[in-house]
């Protein structure tokens, strides 16, 4: 130990202030623990500062602009102008409002926030470095929530014009041409938003389909919509290199062995994210990573070292903010001695594309492997009064149930407000609701959720607003 080095005693240390870490810190404080939260950058993590929140603000602005320009309802004409800098200022103000809110909540719960980079020096001790000093903390419990960062391709190193989602969210002006490597949800969301602002967007996807984890019936609708926004999608494409020059970047890629190139103002590389677990000194704590760089944990989020927990993007499962928060609560409760466990039936997932995509539980194929027989129902937005009167008749709701019991096991929604519609379906799955339960629940008219009731009836064979084939 260096002379003069002090070690302070803390009951609970949380490393990382994202939706996993700050939620864990608040819950631990609510349960009476004395909590310290260490964050190297900004409270709110990726989600609030450079992920979910800013991207959704830009997507809303792009949608507003596009609706203004192209008109939503016939007969209403607008003269629309775009001051993108102001849009960015507004987006930043949204982020500030949300992160300040989190600051206030942490303060109100008496969570002590410490700025700096944390790493382990032992199974019960972390060191926190700032530019000027280092300080050690000895803890009883620790929750690691350090999140993830964008994966860099060796062939396309990040530079002035080869960017991550963080820089693309913060562009000062709308690029004329934007090339995107990666047709996952971040690529699609940002690509479509910039296309609505007027950029010429090209998306390169390595597999045969964009959003490859989703059913073809879903990706077809998104593909069609991308085409309408003049987004060029190239599938089966291998990005090979990017050459930056003073005012553009030239991206070379291969399809079926043939070489192609596209020039753009910027290239966004969004092929996935890697866990921030490599610089944490986990060896010193006695924690071993799995082959994917993730931290193995048990059903409470406990690592192989019993007083250290890990949550969020650094453990197995989908990298989503709401999953991180759920795990954060469980880990904090477990540390406080409660018998909580990660025990969900489903996690909803949303793509804020146009139209929106939201899925929860099993899809039809997956359900078929678990249950002997599966019953499905499908209902089109076009047959719903509210959808049509919103001028949003594009999309569908699909329910998947175990035929024997009628219990809902999965759902998919594509269309306006899918992100909100999915909540009822997640609750239905957790509550073991059957198709009948959903069909017999009165849904207000005229609303989009009426489609849930109608889809359940369709699955049961008696839809009112749809003719049986």
């Amino acid at each position, binding site marked *: 130990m260096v002379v003069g080095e002090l070690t302070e005693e803390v009951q609970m240390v949380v490393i990382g202030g994202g939706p996993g870490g700050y939620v864990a810190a608040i819950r631990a404080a609510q349960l009476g623990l004395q909590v310290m939260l260490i964050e190297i950058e900004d409270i709110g993590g990726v989600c609030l500062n450079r992920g979910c929140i800013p991207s959704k603000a830009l997507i809303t602005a792009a949608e507003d602009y596009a609706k203004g320009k192209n008109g939503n309802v016939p007969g209403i004409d607008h003269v629309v102008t775009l001051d993108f800098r102001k849009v960015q200022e507004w987006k930043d103000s949204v982020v500030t409002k949300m992160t300040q809110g989190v600051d206030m909540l942490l303060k109100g719960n008496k969570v002590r926030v410490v700025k700096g980079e944390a790493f382990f020096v032992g199974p019960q001790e972390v060191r926190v470095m700032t530019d000027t000093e280092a300080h050690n903390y000895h803890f009883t419990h620790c929750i690691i929530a350090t999140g993830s960062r964008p994966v860099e391709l060796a062939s396309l190193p990040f530079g002035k014009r080869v960017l991550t989602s963080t820089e693309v969210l913060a562009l000062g002006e709308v690029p004329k041409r934007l090339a995107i490597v990666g047709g996952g949800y971040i*690529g699609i969301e940002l690509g479509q938003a910039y296309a609505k602002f007027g950029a010429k967007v090209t998306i390169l996807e390595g597999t045969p389909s964009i959003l490859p984890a989703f059913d073809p019936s879903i990706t077809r609708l998104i593909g069609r919509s991308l085409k309408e926004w003049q987004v060029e999608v190239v599938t089966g494409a291998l990005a090979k290199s990017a050459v930056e020059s003073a005012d553009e970047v030239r991206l070379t890629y291969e399809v079926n062995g043939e070489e192609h190139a596209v020039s753009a103002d910027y290239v966004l590389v969004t092929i996935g994210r890697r866990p921030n677990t490599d610089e944490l000194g986990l060896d010193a704590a006695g924690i071993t990573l799995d082959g994917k760089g993730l931290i193995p944990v048990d059903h409470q989020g406990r690592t192989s070292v019993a007083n250290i927990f890990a949550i969020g993007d650094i453990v197995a499962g989908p990298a989503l903010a709401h999953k991180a928060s759920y795990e954060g609560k469980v880990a904090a409760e477990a540390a406080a001695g409660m018998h909580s466990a990660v025990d969900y039936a489903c996690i909803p997932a949303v793509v804020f594309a146009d139209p929106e995509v939201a899925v929860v539980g099993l899809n039809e194929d997956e359900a078929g492997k678990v249950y002997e027989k599966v019953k499905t129902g499908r209902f089109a937005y076009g047959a719903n009064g509210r959808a049509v009167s919103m001028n949003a008749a594009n999309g569908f709701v699909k329910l998947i149930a175990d035929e024997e019991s009628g219990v809902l096991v999965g759902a998919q929604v594509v269309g306006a407000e899918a992100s909100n519609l999915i909540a009822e379906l997640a609750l239905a799955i957790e509550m073991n609701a059957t198709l009948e339960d959903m069909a017999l629940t009165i849904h207000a008219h005229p609303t989009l959720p009426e489609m849930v009731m109608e889809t359940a009836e369709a699955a049961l064979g008696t839809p009112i607003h749809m003719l049986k084939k």
Partner: protein
Amino acid sequence: MGVFQFAFPELGEGIHEGKVAKWIVHEGDYVREDEPLAEVENDKAVVEIPSPVEGKVVQLFFSEGAVASVGEPFVSFETDAVTSDANEEVPKTPLEDAGFATTVHEVKQAEAIEVSGTRTSPAGHTNQSAVATPDIAATPERVLAIPSVRRLARENGIAIEEVKGTGEHGKITREDVFAHLANQDRDNPAISKSENVELPAKEAVTKLVFDTAQEEIVPLSSIRRSIMQAMVKSKFSAPHVTMMDEVDVTELVSFRNEMKQVAAARDVKLTFLPFIVKALIAALKKYPYLNAELDEENGQIKLKKEYHIGIATDTDRGLLVPVLHHANHMSMWELAEQITALSAKARTGKIKLEEMRGSTASISNIGSAKGLFFPPILNYPEVAILGVGRIRETLLRKDGEIVDAHMMALSLSFDHRVVDGAMAQLALNEIKAVLAEPKRMLMEV
């Protein structure tokens, strides 16, 4: 590669130890998960203990013929499946490893790229439909139970999969969890309910066989069910402690004998209970924390200003607790009449719900069944319950003389969250003082 120590697993409900009959593996052997390690014998059966992990056997902690207890180190392995078992408990979802930019697959790819340094790489794999989609086929059907019931089971240390669901399609209800708990308590009173974060033991391979023909199945009545729930709730929410003591009630016995004729003239059945109610109220008045309710949510204790005394009453259908509302305003005669009336109603099933509600403290009398001392379970959320045992005649040394005496057994249970032992004993002393000297009852009214 880490060393994993496997603790001797539970072989079945209530079985805490077993004799190592035979080792199937030896130190240095390589075993796969689920391969048998040893044959273990207990008084019911011989079972095989399966390996929880794949790896090399480093050490066997027992020799053949030795007896191992649950939790003791049994076998250690060199393995890289350090938390594999624990991991299995994390529910796999279809989203896992799927399109949500999981950190998983892409990273591998990127690492591979960095290592090889080649400049060919697939663009945009935000997912890996071609790769490792979770093994859905192997995912068992999830048992039906809503989140709050799952939590209830966890909090009571029960694996939800083990609960028998009585709801539609085998759905597990709150009541099923309570029923499971009650069964567990009966079969297995000593097992601690605490959740084990160590590797869960694999189930022993050989299932124990019980002779079910010897059992009679009695469905639970609704009263039995609510007794069950109330008891479980009380026992698991309020840590309670019982003080036991005896009091010389010789004077009270003769006083009551005197009063018997007066009572008969009034057509009242005079038992000892009205006196005990009076004595209890005297103590509750002096120690108000015993006539109280803990409001955990708001972090406060409510001291009750009225004294509604519950009288635990044994009926053919099970235990009922009719309440003497405002017992502090009743004369001894009124108490005696009320007790007789309420217990008759309870026994004939004519008692109304409101006559069994609102008690602030209770009395449980086991004396009439010749019981002596016992730790009564609180009538939750009350803080105190007085258990009354039989009065026995005995010889007592008093002021240097041996005298005949009647001794009454008292057991006072209290919620230790609200009241500490010293106060409870002081309250019990007060009850004793009043019962020992019935004249004091005149002063207490």
